[in-house]
């Protein structure tokens, strides 16, 4: 016997009322979304916990530390020279610049940073500027690729490849260069290196122009990044931003100009600044910085004492056996040099007690080393002030109110490296 079931057939008005009820329940209900740690736009291992209202971010909490290796602890347990390879792994997109920054910090502690031979200063400036171009190219390529412009990534990597070749020619390594030493550099430039560098500069500007035609006036690109995540001047200073992120907000502050080191006072270059402080301004600042870096490189190639093959035998290293390793042939034949070599290798250089802070204008911002020395060959405490760490701390401030898809653009425009952030 069949039973009759009541089937509730509601009219459309009732259905609409129920749907509206359900919608009302879900409105105001926020969703928590976990972005990272292995998300392609986080360029490494950044995790951000996003609280969402629909598609709009209402809260963001960055969670860092996935790449923490305890570099500061390690530094306390080895001589100053032994720490140089660890600096390669801070901002691993610009190892040459990190090498220069670290060497200058220790030299400031020793009080010799102003007494470096001119040729050494020029070599270091060229290293830092090549690293800047390389890091900005990657930052730009990844930024554009996250926005869907894959061509930019391929073009920028073609140019980076040439910089790797240059790094390989001077240091023997493409990535982990460890090129500087305390008081100098590992070795002088190879004879043809300046020509190679000149060739790179000549080819790079047309390539950069081509890159610019893809993005700078591209309607899609401009619509995506303009007026997005505007950082005011006050916020940029208050949150301690540095590098292109600070200058993008319209503050003319560059350590190369404001606290000059090496031979930067002898070189002509401009500091680009943004006018609004949005993602587009940060992009434009990086583009212009690459051009200025090429300008610096070209001046260095002309001005470097000794020229390409160093026929005049300009010194490249600080000539003090108690700080810099003596030449090998002398170690093998002279007693004093042998002793210096032995002491430098086993105990390190004898640094005075005291404390110094040195900030270097790295591609990502101000990379600073605070060294607290109690004398001897090892630091008592070394704090690494990494630009990416500080630049990321503004995320909880600028993320709320933007769309999920915009977070990817903002991360790209902040241009951070987790190896340096987590140390």
């Amino acid at each position, binding site marked *: 016997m069949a039973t009759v079931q009541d089937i509730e057939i509601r009219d459309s008005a009732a259905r609409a009322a129920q749907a509206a009820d359900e919608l009302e329940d879900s409105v105001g209900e926020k969703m928590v979304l976990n972005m990272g740690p292995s998300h392609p736009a986080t360029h490494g291992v950044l995790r951000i916990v996003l609280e969402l209202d629909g598609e709009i971010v209402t809260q963001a909490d960055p969670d*860092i*530390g996935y790449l*923490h290796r305890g570099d500061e602890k390690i530094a306390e347990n*080895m*001589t100053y020279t032994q720490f140089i390879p660890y600096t390669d792994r801070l901002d691993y997109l610009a190892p040459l610049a990190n090498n220069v920054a670290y060497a200058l910090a220790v030299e*400031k502690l020793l009080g010799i940073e102003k007494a470096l031979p001119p040729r050494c200063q020029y070599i270091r400036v060229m290293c830092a500027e090549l690293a800047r171009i390389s890091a900005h190219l990657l930052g730009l390529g990844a930024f554009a690729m996250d926005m869907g412009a894959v061509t930019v990534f391929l073009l920028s990597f073609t140019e980076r490849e040439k910089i790797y070749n240059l790094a390989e020619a001077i240091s023997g390594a493409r990535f982990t260069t460890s090129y500087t030493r305390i008081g100098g550099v590992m070795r002088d430039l190879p004879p043809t290196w300046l020509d190679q560098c000149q060739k790179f500069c000549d080819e790079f500007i047309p390539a950069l122009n081509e890159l610019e035609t893809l993005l700078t006036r591209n309607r899609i690109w401009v619509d995506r990044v303009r007026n997005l995540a505007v950082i005011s001047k006050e916020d940029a200073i*208050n949150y301690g931003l540095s590098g292109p992120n600070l200058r993008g907000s319209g503050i003319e502050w560059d350590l190369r100009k*404001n606290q000059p080191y090496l031979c930067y006072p002898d070189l002509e270059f401009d500091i680009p600044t943004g006018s609004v402080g949005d993602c587009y301004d940060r992009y434009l600042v990086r583009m212009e910085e690459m051009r200025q870096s090429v300008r610096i490189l070209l001046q260095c190639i002309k001005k470097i004492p000794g020229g390409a093959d160093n026929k005049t035998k300009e010194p490249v290293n600080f000539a003090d056996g108690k700080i810099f390793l003596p030449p090998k042939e002398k170690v093998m034949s002279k007693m004093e040099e042998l002793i210096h070599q032995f002491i430098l290798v086993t105990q390190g250089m004898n640094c005075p007690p005291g404390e110094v802070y040195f900030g270097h204008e790295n591609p990502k911002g101000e990379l600073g080393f605070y060294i607290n020395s109690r004398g001897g060959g090892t630091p008592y405490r070394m704090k690494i002030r990494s630009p990416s760490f500080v630049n990321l701390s503004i995320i909880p401030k600028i993320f709320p109110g933007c769309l999920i898809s915009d977070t990817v653009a903002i991360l790209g425009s902040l241009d951070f490296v987790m190896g340096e952030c987590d140390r």
Partner: protein
Amino acid sequence: MPPLEFAQKLKTKFGPVISEPAEFRGEITLKVGDAGRIVEICEFAKKELGFDYLVDVSSVDNYGDDPRWTIVYHLRSLKHGNELRLKTDVSEEKSELPTVTTVWKTANWHEREIYDMMGIRFSGHPDLRRILMWEGYPYFPLRKDFPLAGKPSELPGVAFTKPAPLEGGPFVTAPGGKDAIEREPRVRTSEG
């Protein structure tokens, strides 16, 4: 105006709380005698002297000395370009001082890092959680009595807590020794 004049201004304002300025390699360091007053001193430095940019906050563990902790603030002015370093001591029993996040927002993460690495607390901090290590990690790894090889932690299911096989790597030296024999652990063991 040279940085020494700023130091003198701070000193005339706050009197004996602030030590005589010490200069080393062109950098001025001032010692603040009372860690509890660091906020008003920083406030004054920012508002009246124009030190609008906090470069860095770091900490030093003076293990074996009293007071054990030193907190180091690097102040900079983007207006006139001068820099100043403030230092203040905190005892191990107290291990707490007021936060300067009310003066500079950037202090937030720096202070979280100090709490995470050294275990010094900042009263009034809006969000004092661990930042580099994971929540619930039982030690403070940058303290001098924390071994380089690490310590096993009792947390279940957390990786990377066993001592490294080479006790930190092949080039490890111990700081503070007078000569290579004291500094180099392998030398010590081979000679007994």
